[in-house]
C-alpha cells in the first residue's frame, strides 16, 4: 500500500507519479534491464536516487571514465550501497564500463554485485552495503584531499539510524571539511515501512545542523533545484554541507512508489518485469 511522504518544506515536496524526462526514463530502463537479468535488486531504493546521481555525474562531478583513479577527480561514495543499480546505470552511461556489463548483474561472471565493490568496479570509490560506513570513509578521504579535491557521500534515510553516521558527522564538523558534501536520499521509507514509524528522524535538517553541517533541502527529483543546490557546495566556507533530498521511493513507476514491498525484490516474475517496462514507457 502506497503511503504519502511525511512533511517536507513545501518547495521541496516531491510529487507522486509526476512525469519523467527522456534521460530519467532511459536510466530507469537501464536499471530495470539489470534488475531483470538477475531477477532481483533494490529497485525502489535505486529509483529514488536517479535524479541525484544524474545531476551529480552530468553537471557537478569531475571525473574521467578512462582514468577512474585520476588523482584530481571528485570522489563519490554511494554509502547506501543497496541503491547501486542507479549508480551502475549512470557509470555505464558515462563509459566507466560497457553497458553490456549491466546484463551480468549479480552473475558469477560479472563485476556488478548486489552491493558495489571498490577495486572491482571502475568508478566505485568504496565497498558499501553495510550502512553507516561510507561517511566515515568519506571523512577520511576529505581530510586527505583538503585543498585539492572534493568528496560527495550519498546516504539513505534509514542509514541515519546508524550511530556511526553521527560519529562521522561530528568529526566532519570538527575538521571543518568544506570539501565534503553529504546527500541524504530522504524517501521517508525504509525496508519495513515509513521511517516515521520505524525510527523517526524529523526534524532531520535540524539534526544535521546541530551536528555542525550547513543544511539545504530540495526536491530530489527536481533537476534544476538539485543542480542549483549542488553548484552552491560548499554551502558555507569552513563547514561540511548536507543536501537533504526529499524523494519518492520507487519514483517513476506508480506501483513501486512508496511501496515497502519493492524495497528489495528477489525472484521477480516476467509479468512484473513487463509491468515495470510498460509503466516506464508512459512515465
Amino acid at each position: 500500500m502506497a503511503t504519502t511522504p511525511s512533511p517536507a518544506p513545501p518547495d521541496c515536496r516531491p510529487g507522486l507519479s509526476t512525469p519523467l524526462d527522456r534521460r530519467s526514463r532511459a536510466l530507469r530502463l537501464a536499471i530495470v534491464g539489470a534488475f531483470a537479468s538477475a531477477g532481483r535488486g533494490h529497485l525502489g531504493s535505486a529509483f529514488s536516487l536517479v535524479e541525484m546521481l544524474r545531476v551529480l555525474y552530468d553537471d557537478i562531478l569531475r571525473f574521467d571514465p578512462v582514468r577512474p583513479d585520476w588523482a584530481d577527480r571528485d570522489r563519490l561514495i554511494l554509502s547506501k550501497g543497496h541503491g547501486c543499480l542507479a549508480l551502475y546505470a549512470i557509470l555505464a552511461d558515462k563509459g566507466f564500463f560497457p553497458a553490456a556489463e549491466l546484463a551480468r548483474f549479480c552473475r558469477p561472471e560479472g563485476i556488478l554485485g548486489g552491493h558495489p565493490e571498490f577495486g572491482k568496479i571502475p568508478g566505485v570509490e568504496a565497498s558499501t552495503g553495510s550502512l553507516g560506513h561510507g561517511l566515515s570513509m568519506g571523512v577520511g578521504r576529505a581530510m586527505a584531499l583538503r585543498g585539492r579535491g572534493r568528496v560527495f557521500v550519498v546516504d539513505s534515510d534509514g542509514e541515519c539510524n546508524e550511530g556511526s553516521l553521527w560519529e562521522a558527522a561530528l568529526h566532519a564538523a570538527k575538521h571543518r571539511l568544506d570539501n565534503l558534501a553529504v546527500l541524504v536520499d530522504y524517501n521517508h521509507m525504509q525496508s519495513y515501512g515509513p521511517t516515521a514509524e520505524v525510527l523517526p528522524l524529523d526534524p532531520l535538517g535540524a539534526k544535521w545542523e546541530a551536528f555542525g553541517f550547513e543544511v539545504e533541502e530540495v526536491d530530489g527529483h527536481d533537476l534544476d533545484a538539485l543542480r542549483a543546490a549542488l553548484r552552491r557546495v560548499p554551502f558555507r566556507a569552513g563547514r561540511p554541507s548536507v543536501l537533504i533530498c526529499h524523494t519518492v521511493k520507487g519514483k517513476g513507476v506508480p506501483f513501486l512508489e512508496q511501496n515497502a514491498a519493492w524495497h528489495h525484490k528477489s525472484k521477480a516474475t516476467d509479468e512484473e518485469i513487463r509491468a515495470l517496462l510498460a509503466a516506464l514507457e508512459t512515465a
Partner: protein
Amino acid sequence: MRKTCLDCVYELARMDERVVFLGSDLGAGTLDRFKADLPDRFFMEGISEAHLVGMAAGLALEGKIVYFNTIATFITRRCFEQIVLDLCLHRAKVRLIGSGGGLVYAPLGPTHLATEDIAILRTLPGMTILAPADATEMRRLMPVTLDLPGPVYIRLGKGGDPVVTDPAQPFVLGRPYLLRPGGDTLLVSTGTMAQMALDAADRLEAQGLRAGVLHLPTLKPLDTEAVLAHLALARAVVSLEEHTRIGGLGSILAELLAETPFPSPKRFARLGLPDAFAEQYGSQASLLAHMGLSVESVVEAALGLHARR
C-alpha cells in the same frame, strides 16, 4: 613497549610523509613531540572507534599510512565490522595498535581485558597480527609494518616487560624465533608470554627436563614451514598465550599438528585463558595465575605430557 611503539611511529613519520597518527582520546601528553613537530599528521580524535576505523580507511585510500592507537578491546570489539569491511575488504594500510593485550588492565575488569582479539582478527582475510615480546623486538618490528599490504594489528604488552629477544636478530614477518634451544619438549609462546615460557624452561631444567622456547611474534601470516620444522623435533608441545584458549596461538598450533603427518603423534597441551570472564581484579600476574597461567602451570603441563604413556 607502548612508548617504544609510539616513538617508532614518530620516527617513521619523520622519515615518510605518508605516515599519520590517529588516537582516540588517549592520555594527556601522548606523543606531544609528534603533535609539535608534525601537527598536520597528528589526529587526536574523540571516542568514536567505529567511525575512526572507517576514517582511517578513507585516509589510507588516499595514500596515507595510518597508525591508530587506543585500548585493545576498543580497537577490536566495537569496530569489528569496520575492521572487516573498511580495512580488510579495502586492503587499507591502517595499523591498529592495541594497548593492553590480554590481562594488562586486570584492575579495570572485563571491559578492558583483550582476551579474544587474536581469535577474532585471525579469521579476517588479509589481516596481519603481531604480538612482540618486548620493547626491543617492537623497535625491530615497527619499520617492517610501514609497507605491509593491508591492515595490521599490533598487540601491545605491559610497559617495562623484560627483554627476552635477541637484538641482533632481524625481524622477519611470519618467522618464529627460537629463544632457547630445547630437548624433546617445546614451549611455544606469543607476545610477552615468552618470559613465562623461559622461566618455566629454567624450572623444568632444574627438574631434569630440557625444554626449548619458541616465540611467535607474528600470528598471521605465519611461516608454517618454519614452525613445523621446530615442532617436528619435539615430542611434547605446550602452547601458552595471554588470550582465550579458543582461536589463538593454541588453536593455530593444534590446526598445524592435526593436519601434519608426523611419524609419531605429538603430545600437546594448550595453556591460555579459560572460556570465562575474569571474576576478580588484582594485578596482571595475580589474575593470570588465577586464570591458570603461571610458571607453575606451564611446568605442570610439560611434566604431565611427559608422564603420559
